[in-house]
């Protein structure tokens, strides 16, 4: 029959990856005709609500964790425990099983994830005699050297807020650890808690030391790439998807490097941020049978190897091959050795409204650190409302 797939993979690499994925599936299942609707990346976040209720496709991509909670609660996603069961995904995709489980059921199939960390200009570090920092003091010191050299240590564009969320996640994971972070994003801890204040104090230290790009609130994350390309900034706390545009802008692998976010509190185990992308069957889908076939296909080790090669990201299936790109390798080894836990991302771990208010607060804090108390109180107020 006909299989309708909606995705938001409109950027060049993801688009190519899906083209290949679908072609492969069709080749193996000649009786299935796939219709693929490609959505604009930003618009997809709102359109998914519409098509899930009004005109459901048979498959749609989305994100793991809290981000899928509203649709699960609204009964718009189909549980796919049987797919997992029949295809042995419980083993092969074990690492992501937790983030796919709500109320004891599995709601989709993950196909890729990618690491976050610090991307940096190797050549600038070398020129200023800086080694890759592994702990907080070295990090601060590196920043100081860069500032002295007239280079902004960290570039960032917070116009669309979420980049600030990434910074917060890392500071909080390193200061208070994974469990606290998850408790916070689940609304179990007050934002006015002293531990949050400790995270913010660390952040303030960076701000006061002039770590971040000036006027970052005026830029999108892409615009913030420019100073790094031009050599005016040295580091970017980002996901792996930043590598492609940086390369495209002319940076070579000799100039560009990656390191794990440095240790702040040596007492907490290192946790990482690695958002997982997933595919789901809407509850109102018409052709669930073929959809499940597609999910099984997508979960296969070889398929995940291929798709992530094109995406430049990491496969979930433990039997897949990780591409030999140096950043992927670095990410893979970092994530597979992580003991502290893997977070999705601030706006996937926290509910949407909390995320919005939170990230807005982070942005404000980055510009006006003296308003910390007011900001935290605001977040706390929102917490009280959102998680009731």
């Amino acid at each position: 029959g006909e299989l309708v797939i909606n995705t938001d993979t409109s950027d060049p690499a993801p688009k190519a990856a899906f083209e290949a994925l679908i072609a492969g599936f069709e080749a193996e299942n000649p009786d299935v005709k796939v219709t693929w609707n490609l959505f604009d990346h930003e618009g997809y976040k709102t359109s998914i609500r519409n098509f899930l209720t009004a005109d459901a496709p048979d498959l749609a991509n989305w994100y793991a964790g809290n981000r899928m909670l509203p649709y699960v609660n609204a009964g718009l996603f189909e549980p796919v425990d049987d797919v997992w069961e029949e295809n042995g995904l419980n083993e092969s995709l074990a690492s992501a099983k937790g983030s796919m489980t709500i109320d004891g059921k599995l709601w989709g199939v993950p196909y890729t994830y990618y690491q976050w960390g610090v991307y940096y200009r190797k050549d600038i570090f070398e020129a200023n005699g800086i080694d890759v920092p592994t702990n907080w003091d070295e990090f601060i010191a590196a920043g100081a050297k860069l500032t002295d050299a007239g280079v902004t240590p960290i570039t960032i564009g917070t116009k669309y807020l979420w980049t600030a969320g990434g910074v917060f996640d890392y500071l909080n994971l390193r200061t208070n650890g994974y469990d606290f972070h998850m408790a916070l994003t689940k609304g179990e801890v007050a934002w006015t808690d002293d531990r949050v204040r400790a995270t913010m104090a660390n952040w303030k230290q960076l701000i006061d030391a002039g770590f971040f790009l000036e006027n970052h609130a005026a830029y999108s994350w892409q615009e913030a790439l420019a100073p790094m390309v031009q050599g005016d900034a040295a580091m970017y706390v980002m996901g792996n998807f930043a590598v492609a545009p940086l390369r495209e802008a002319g940076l070579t692998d000799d100039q560009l490097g990656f390191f794990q976010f440095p240790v702040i509190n040596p007492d907490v185990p290192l946790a990482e941020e690695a958002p997982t992308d997933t595919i789901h069957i809407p509850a109102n889908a018409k052709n669930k049978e073929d959809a499940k076939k597609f999910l099984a296909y997508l979960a296969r080790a070889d398929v995940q190897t291929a798709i992530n090669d094109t995406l430049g990201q990491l496969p979930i299936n433990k039997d897949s091959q990780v591409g030999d790109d140096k950043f992927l390798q670095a990410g893979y080894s970092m994530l597979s050795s992580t003991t502290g836990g893997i977070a999705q991302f601030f706006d996937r771990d926290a509910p949407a409204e909390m995320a919005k208010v939170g990230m807005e607060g982070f942005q404000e804090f980055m510009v006006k650190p003296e308003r910390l108390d007011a900001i935290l109180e605001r977040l706390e107020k929102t917490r009280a409302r959102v998680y009731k």
Partner: protein
Amino acid sequence: MFPTPIEKTRATTRTLYNVALPVALILWLLPLIAVAVTSVRSGGDITAGNYWGWPTSFNLLENYTAIFENTPFGNYLWNSFRVTIPTVIGAVALSCMTGFALGVYKFRSNLLIFFMFVAGNFVPFQILMVPVRDLTLDMGVYNTATGLVLFHVAFQTGFCTLFMRNFIRALPFELIEAARVEGVSEIRIFWYVVIPLMKPAIAALSVLIFTFIWNDYFWATVLTQGAESQPITAGLYSLNGQWVAAWHLVSAGSIVAALPPVLMFFLMQRHFIAGLTLGAVK
């Protein structure tokens, strides 16, 4: 005429004025000129930070073909036409009828209905957003040009009715009475007498609605998603995310997006201004 015609003033004032005019114009349009110039720069100029100097090369063709080749820009443009043209036709047709009914006939609720149209036209359209979106979803035309057209036609009918009704009011009523005395039915009066007389109003309104709808951004974001149905305004904005720091492409896109209404304005200037001042409201 006020102020004093310049030809009646002293020679120095005249010279000053003749110099001030182009200078003022350039200042006024500076942002646009900058965009136009940037749209022919090479990518090299942009990365080299040559935003304000003389372009090192003129890449008119390259840039303008680039925006069509690598992105769904052509799609967006086509969607704009698919939304704008039917809306213009629909809104003008509906409002010719409502304007005629409200302008010609005396009946008790005439003013009330008229005011309903006028008031509706002024409401902050945000208040319509949630229900209209639901309605569009329920009708199954969400994310289609049809959905946008239906809404625009309905909403613009408020403004167009105001416009048409006032225009018809200003027509000599004797023309209609003359036709009545001659035994012409009301529908034929509308078709044979009133419509031909409304040609200038129809022209003015069409141009005006064309620009309004072409430039609409809000409803485009509310009622459509994605390249296969979004018009150019929304498209430009999402492409802005893709063309990171490719300012020459963004500029070229902006220029193309601005071109149809600008052309429309230039070709139909008289009608356009008549429309603005007669209708007097956006």
